[in-house]
């Protein structure tokens, strides 16, 4: 919301300067985004009159002007503007002046041999508009020698404030002035608006057939108007806030919209046919709006239409067909109350923003519908002449009386800052509230404060906090001083949940093992999600189609990251992420690790570089699970179930029947979809599948075994389809008391043991409990190990 200082002073009697007002606005919650003082740039430009204009001796299109700049000595200026002529008044820049629109500084120059001491300026050269067909023409009575910016009221500093969505009353200068006055920055100028008596019955029938969308439609005709340009002061203010002056009638509606949050619309009566009716649009009806675009309407939107056309998208934008033009002599003023929800829904559906929509959808003051129409009538009569008809009121303006039960002690109760009752009453009164003291106070909410209180309050506390905010806002929110929260006895207690602790441990364990934590988008291109079984959740309105599918796995994000890194010359990555997968049954906390490029660099000690293999992934998976407190010694490896894994080089770590993690090499077809070359290993850990960590309680007394453990090695030959894990488990279970550990330490295949065969060597640890093992004891255990292996088809090597 923009406004100028001069405009504000029409509504606020104050001596406060720009800075003081800026600070006050921020204090009030009307956050100042910028204050722009255009005089700074245009101060040197003055009003000048062209005395004579002669043809340039050397150039057909140039003239040599003699210009009266007000100091008695005519100045010679060479000018190329077609409209330059003797007797005209314009804007002059002297040598040394910086011209903002052409980004140059004027100097005395000879133009085709004729000296020029300055310039007569166009609108574009002063950055006042795009107009550059000729130099600025001012009325003959413009005072020669005066600063142009002052005379044209361009010198008015422009405030730009951010209005929060609740304060629609401050989308107009008057409301801002009221807030400033409440703070003590001057006095609100609030003259009574006098009704303009009608001279004749309104010649156009006005109706509302859509009381839901347009509860009230007020209007009247003003006949015999002259619709020329609006006066310079009005144009200057509209330009200052970024609006384009169009014609007096249109400018008046914009002016009142920005002065009083009272959007209006004017119709050329000559272009209307039959009654003007607020009604629901018909599906497929279309209207060419004043922005030149045609909108197709849907049932449910409210429009203003006559017998032939939709003339207005109600409360949002007028239509071309019946807009006011310079030829307009009879005008119909529409001043309506539209239901905010309807305006918002229509605006969103059409994707159409306008100043009117912004005001109507936040809710204009229902108490200012009739006064707004009178104000507009008077301004039209003043600026365009004519005579006004009677006012037609169709429907009923929904003015709800809101009374808040208010306990002034709630200010101290909520804010922790006491404000005396008298001050509270004074603040509320200055803001326009009606205060009746009592227990509690009865506070009547002014019609323009849609944000305070609720109509037909059901709770005694409804609206009370709103009034606390009003009081504390004016009293000074920043005067609230810090008061400590009560603190529990003793040192701070632990607060993290088991799931949070798990995530923290896992994150730091993965980083400690050399992986870098990434955070990638939760949404993916659908094609990437397809590689991972497809997305269970797809956005209806993604920011782009590449960000539409909620990730079913963390791997695609990491694969894409690896691919980007490779493109940047960083092919060797160990990336991990901890976050949610989004599946049909909800969100699942997950950790993923991606290993791409070299596992080892080439090195003078270790030889050539080596890529990652599935066992690297398995090692990382087990290390991560161990850090997460999972019982890794009880896990078994099952075959992979998902298509994005290499079918022969990946596995699933299972506890009982629960999958805790998948690991292995990513399927080459999947890698190709991400433009990744080489081998990529990965791990995905399913955090919500992990068993809850066991409590770290005291562990009981412990004495190390008195007798040393002994080890025995066994080498078996088996079919190479035998899972090593099965052999190790069989050996482990061969003697549950003596055997405390089995480790596979060697594996080979080759001609020495025959095709389709594998040699597996294990080291078995025996821990005697009460006596030293005899050779016979060891022989007996060994025999059981060999027998257990034999059941799997594994034969002890000779």
């Amino acid at each position, binding site marked *: 919301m923009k406004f100028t200082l001069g405009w504000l002073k029409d509504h606020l009697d104050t001596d406060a300067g720009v800075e003081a007002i800026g600070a006050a606005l921020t204090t009030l919650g009307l956050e100042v985004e910028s204050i722009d003082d255009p005089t700074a740039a245009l101060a040197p430009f003055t009003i000048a009159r062209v005395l004579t204009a002669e043809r340039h001796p050397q150039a057909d299109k140039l003239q040599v002007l003699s210009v009266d700049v007000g100091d008695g000595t005519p100045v010679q200026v060479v000018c190329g503007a077609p409209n330059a002529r003797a007797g005209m008044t314009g804007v002059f820049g002297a040598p040394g002046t910086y011209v903002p629109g052409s980004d140059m500084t004027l100097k005395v120059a000879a133009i085709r041999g004729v000296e020029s001491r300055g310039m007569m300026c166009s609108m574009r050269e002063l950055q006042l508009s795009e107009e550059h067909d000729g130099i600025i023409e001012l009325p003959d009575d413009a005072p020669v020698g005066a600063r142009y910016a002052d005379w044209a009221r361009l010198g008015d500093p422009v405030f730009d404030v951010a209005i929060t969505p609740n304060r629609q009353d401050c989308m107009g200068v008057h409301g801002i002035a009221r807030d400033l006055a409440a703070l003590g920055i001057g006095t609100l100028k609030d003259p009574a608006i006098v009704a303009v008596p009608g001279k004749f019955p309104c010649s156009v029938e006005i109706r509302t057939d859509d009381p839901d969308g347009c509860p009230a439609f007020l209007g009247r005709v003003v006949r015999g108007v002259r619709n020329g340009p609006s006066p310079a002061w009005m144009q200057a203010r509209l330009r200052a806030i970024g609006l384009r002056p169009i014609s007096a009638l249109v400018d008046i509606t914009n002016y009142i919209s920005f002065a009083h949050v009272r959007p209006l619309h004017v119709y050329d009566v000559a272009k209307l046919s039959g009654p003007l009716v607020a009604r629901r649009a018909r599906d497929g009806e279309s209207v060419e709006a004043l922005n030149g675009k045609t909108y197709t309407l849907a049932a449910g939107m409210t429009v203003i239409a006559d017998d032939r056309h939709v003339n207005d998208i109600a409360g949002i934008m007028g239509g071309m067909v019946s807009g006011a033009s310079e030829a307009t002599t009879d005008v119909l003023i529409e001043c309506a109350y539209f239901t905010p929800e309807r305006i918002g829904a229509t605006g969103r559906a059409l994707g159409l923003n306008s100043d009117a929509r912004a005001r109507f959808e936040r809710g204009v003051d229902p108490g200012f519908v009739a006064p707004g129409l009178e104000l507009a009538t008077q301004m039209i009569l003043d600026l365009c002449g004519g005579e006004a008809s009677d006012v037609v009121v169709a429907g009923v303006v929904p003015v709800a009386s809101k009374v808040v039960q208010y306990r002034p002690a709630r200010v101290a109760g909520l*804010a922790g800052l006491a404000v005396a009752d008298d001050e509270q009453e004074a603040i509320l009164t200055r803001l326009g509230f009606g205060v009746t003291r009592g227990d509690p106070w009865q506070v009547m909410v002014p019609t323009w404060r849609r944000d305070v209180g609720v109509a037909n309050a059901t*709770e005694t506390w409804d609206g009370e906090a709103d009034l606390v905010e009003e009081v504390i806002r004016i009293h000074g929110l920043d005067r*609230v001083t*810090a*008061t400590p929260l009560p603190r529990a006895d003793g040192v*701070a207690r632990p607060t993290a949940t088991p799931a949070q602790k798990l995530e923290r441990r896992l994150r730091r364990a993965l980083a400690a093992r050399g992986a870098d934590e990434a955070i990638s988008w939760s949404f993916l291109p659908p094609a990437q999600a397809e590689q991972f079984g497809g997305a269970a959740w797809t956005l209806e309105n993604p*920011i782009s189609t590449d960000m539409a599918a909620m990730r079913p796995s963390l791997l695609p994000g990491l694969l894409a990251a690896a691919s980007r890194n490779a493109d940047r010359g960083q092919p060797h990555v160990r990336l991990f992420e901890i976050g949610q997968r989004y599946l049909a049954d909800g969100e699942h906390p997950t950790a993923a690790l991606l290993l791409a490029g070299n596992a080892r660099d080439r090195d003078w000690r270790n030889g050539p570089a080596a890529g990652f293999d599935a066992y690297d992934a398995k090692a990382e998976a087990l290390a991560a699970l161990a850090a997460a407190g999972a019982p890794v010694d009880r896990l078994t490896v099952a075959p992979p179930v998902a298509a994005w894994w290499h079918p022969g080089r990946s596995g699933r770590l299972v506890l009982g029947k629960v999958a805790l993690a998948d690991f292995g090499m990513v399927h080459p077809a999947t890698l190709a979809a991400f433009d990744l070359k080489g081998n990529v290993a990965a791990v995905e850990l399913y955090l919500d599948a992990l068993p809850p960590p066991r409590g770290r309680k005291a562990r009981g007394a412990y004495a190390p075994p008195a007798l040393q453990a002994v080890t025995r090695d066994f080498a078996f030959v088996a079919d190479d389809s035998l899972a090593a894990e099965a052999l190790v488990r069989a050996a482990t279970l061969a003697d549950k008391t003596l055997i405390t550990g089995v480790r596979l330490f060697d594996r080979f295949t080759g001609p020495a043991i025959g095709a389709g065969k594998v040699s597996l060597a294990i080291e078995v640890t025996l821990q005697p409990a009460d006596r030293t093992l005899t050779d016979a004891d060891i022989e007996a255990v060994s025999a059981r190990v060999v027998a257990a292996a034999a059941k799997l088809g594994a034969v002890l090597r000779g």
Partner: protein
Amino acid sequence: MHTDTLQPEILGQIAAAASPEALEAVRVAAMGKSGSVTALLKTLGGMTPEQRQTEGPKLNGLREAVAAALAARKAELEAAALNARLAAERQDMTLPVAAPRTGTIHPVSQVMDELAEIFADMGFSVATGPEIEDDWHNFSALNIPESHPARAMHDTFYFPQQPGDEKRMLLRTHTSPVQIRTMMTQAPPIRIIAPGRVYRSDSDATHTPMFHQIEGLVIDRGTTLAQLRWTLETFIKAFFEVDDVALRFRPSYFPFTEPSVEVDVGYSSQTNRPAGAGEVDRWLEVLGSGMVHPRVIAACGLDPEEYQGFAFGTGVDRLAMLKYGMTDLRAFFDADLRWLKHHGFSAFDVPTLSGGVSGGLGA
């Protein structure tokens, strides 16, 4: 031969022996079965007792002297041999070794851990909630009705509505639904922070469609804005490790708080950190906050006449940028290895109250 001449001769040979083999040859020649010293010792048997009395000590002295010289020379030779071997084993200690694999913690995770640590000391626990939310938790319960402009303001990502669904599913636009879920499941007093991913349909240099927020909520009897101010001051001082901070409370608007407060943090351009009132030369809009709206408290089944409290929210990514100096939000989610290595934290930079909450800064 006589001992008087034999001893210097053998000791000379021992000293001259240049290798273990030569020394062994000397030993055998002197002390072996048919060695010269052995031969002399054998003569003791044929002597008279008187002769033995004088010659015995002499011959034993010879034997001991030779044995001692042999042992000493052997040790000398072994030491020389070891020295020679070690000298030959020299390696170039300037050759490189494999660099340790050092991973990193993402700044967002690090800052979330820092926040958890700071707020734990003030009695706040960490609460979480789903990112795929329904419109009731994300909007309605937070006093944002269907038609409220704030719903559009939030640029919400929606999921298609299934026929028969009462609730509209969406990506949460803020962490505030966690307030609702907490108040509906937990009896006051409540002190929580809720960090997490949030989503808005917005993308430019300072906005990404996904980012991280942290929400704070205190619900109790008699909780006030004054306590909010203390909480935020305490948090800002601890997080930025400054002794003093000036905050500015400005009126603002959030549908779920009343009164609503925008909190500016006073900054010093000298230190580029938050500063006390004397040193502040600019204000940064950092936090949105306010007293929880009574309608929100009531929507969660609590009596607003009994319970009240405050809520605040801010961007975790933004806090990380302010504290650790990153400039581009988009880089947070790009996983560029070089950026991660540069801005990431060591796994061992665990924020603790005793060691400091700033990983890698003070530590």
